[in-house]
């Protein structure tokens, strides 16, 4: 049976853990991420001859404000490269949730956007056209209620097909101002030469332009193979 690694990402309180528990049942364990006081939950799921390992990432509004939670989520997506990342969105606060969704879509094309709390949205009279959204975002969009257990089969079907490589995605790319796009174009080939295909070159170029020391430190640590379990302080924003 082939094995796939699936990450659940999303804003705080969007129902990631509820979905995680629903999908993995009792087949899960928790611990700490190395060197961080952030809970790490991993679980297993079998569906249609495939074995999945699910990772419940900490909920964050972004991946770039440099809190421990955000570093864990970012590092997981960029270094562990899950086969599929499910971005769980709150159907009642889509505008806010899109920030993180777009950030993830810049990092990987293997994404399923999962709109949760659809029952709450209905109560509030919010209607979501998932086909239109899927066209815009360039990745599959599935509406679910993790609490009422609706839409779960469709989510699993989509996962199955993406794992099989049957879904061609074309994730939306944020276009930046002309001068930033010019700099990205200059940096991208250099990045590619330096790190090869291991990382999305455009995304790394953006981090360089952003002066994202947190990511550069994480990258250096990886490349040196040093597994120092010391958080980098003095730079991250205070919460």
């Amino acid at each position: 049976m082939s094995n796939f690694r699936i990450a659940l990402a999303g804003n705080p309180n969007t129902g990631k853990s509820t979905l995680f528990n629903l999908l993995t049942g009792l087949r899960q364990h928790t611990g700490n991420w190395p060197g961080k006081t952030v809970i790490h939950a991993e679980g297993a799921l079998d569906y249609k001859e495939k074995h999945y390992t699910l990772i419940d990432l900490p909920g964050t509004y972004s991946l770039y404000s440099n809190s421990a939670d955000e570093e864990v989520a970012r590092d997981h997506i960029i270094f562990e490269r899950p086969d599929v990342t499910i971005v769980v969105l709150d159907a009642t606060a889509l505008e806010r949730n899109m920030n993180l969704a777009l950030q993830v879509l810049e990092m990987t094309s293997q994404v399923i956007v999962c709109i949760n709390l659809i029952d709450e949205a209905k109560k509030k009279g919010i209607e979501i056209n998932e086909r239109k959204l899927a066209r815009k975002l360039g990745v599959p969009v599935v509406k679910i209620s993790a609490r009422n257990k609706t839409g779960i089969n469709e989510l699993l079907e989509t996962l199955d097909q993406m794992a099989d490589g049957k879904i061609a995605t074309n994730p939306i790319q944020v276009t930046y101002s002309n001068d930033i796009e010019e700099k990205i174009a200059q940096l991208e080939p250099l990045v590619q030469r330096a790190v090869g295909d291991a990382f999305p070159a455009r995304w790394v170029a953006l981090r360089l332009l952003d002066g994202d020391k947190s990511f550069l430190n994480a990258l250096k640590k990886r490349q040196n193979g040093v597994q120092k379990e010391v958080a980098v302080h003095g730079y991250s924003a205070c919460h």
Partner: protein
Amino acid sequence: MGLSNSIPLSQVKTGEMFQINKIQLEGPLKRRLLDLGFIPGAVVEVLQKSPLGDPVAYRVSNTTIALRKEESLLITGSLIRSEAHE
């Protein structure tokens, strides 16, 4: 352009609505406020002050977020008159 009646979010009272015009910050701290939903144009409702007056809970883009005064001082904009009082 409305700068004459521009005030910091920290001065807005509980129950009042405020529209953000500018984040008077740069770098990671600005990024953090933007990521929390405090973006120019966004409407913020002041929910409640904690017993000591700091931090304060705000409603922005359908989510409740607490900010400290040193942060809300640097978010400027204008009050929105609520229709209920007119």
